[in-house]
């Protein structure tokens, strides 16, 4: 499966935009497996340093996860204030407490407006962006969460540290011969 929607400047990117290899995740903030993947992804990023960038796109399974969309809204709200990754980490690290009180306390910790988060969630302020991520994912063959792409290929292996590292190394050899 090939990524239908290429990574652009509008994506949330961790690491250098010009890194030779991209690890892209389609994730849901209420998905337990995404929560398990979160620290592993961070370890993988650390392992590759400047050779890897990480992108995160929303794939909220709203029918199954009542808090997934609200969490995505909270992250996008923080993103508007250039604090996307702090909110992203905060949500995954506290996934067991997902809900409005968590979003408010994370926003407060980041110095963001509580009312701003409440309004973003109530007005579905970033629904277009979240929907765009979701539709791009569907088109690219995202089949559950988390789904990873390495370069523009869907990674069908697991997301254990060693599996991800091996798959990324294979891409890196091609990108930087």
């Amino acid at each position, binding site marked *: *499966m090939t990524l*239908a929607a290429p990574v652009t400047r509008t994506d949330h990117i961790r690491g250098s935009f010009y890194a030779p290899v991209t690890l892209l995740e389609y994730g849901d903030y209420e998905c337990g497996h995404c929560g398990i993947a979160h620290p592993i992804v961070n370890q993988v990023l650390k392992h590759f340093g400047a050779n890897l960038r990480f992108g995160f796109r929303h794939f909220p*399974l*709203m*029918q*199954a996860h009542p808090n997934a969309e609200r969490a995505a809204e909270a992250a996008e709200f923080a993103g508007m204030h250039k604090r996307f990754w702090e909110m992203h980490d905060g949500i995954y690290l506290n996934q067991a407490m997902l809900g409005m009180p968590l979003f408010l306390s994370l926003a407060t910790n980041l110095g963001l407006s509580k009312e701003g988060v409440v309004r973003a969630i109530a007005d579905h302020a970033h629904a277009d962006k979240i929907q765009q991520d*979701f*539709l791009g994912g*569907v*088109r*690219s*063959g*995202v*089949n*559950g969460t988390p789904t990873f792409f390495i370069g523009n290929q869907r990674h*069908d292996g697991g997301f254990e540290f060693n599996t991800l590292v091996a798959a990324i190394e294979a891409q890196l050899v091609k990108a930087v011969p």
Partner: protein
Amino acid sequence: MVLYNEVRPLFQKHGADVLGLSVDGVWCHQAFARARNIKFPLLSDFHPKGEVAKKYGAYREHEGLSDRALFVIDKEGMIYWSHCSPIAVNPGANGILEALERLTK
């Protein structure tokens, strides 16, 4: 099934709907649908076991399970598109959407 539950509005835009079918019994389906908030019908091919799946050529005799197979059926009841995925690979929704687009354009 969870994915198709989410993507269902996109199927409905093309006048299509989703049905799920497996050899599990109705109580099993009911529990699954409740746990995952599945909104579309799950059909039980339980007795005689796999009769419908066999008609679609999607029955794994050896394991007594239906295949991970997708069928897009047109208004006349003809199979317009189909895809059989390895049992461990969720086939996603992109193939279905592309078929619906070709069918309804």
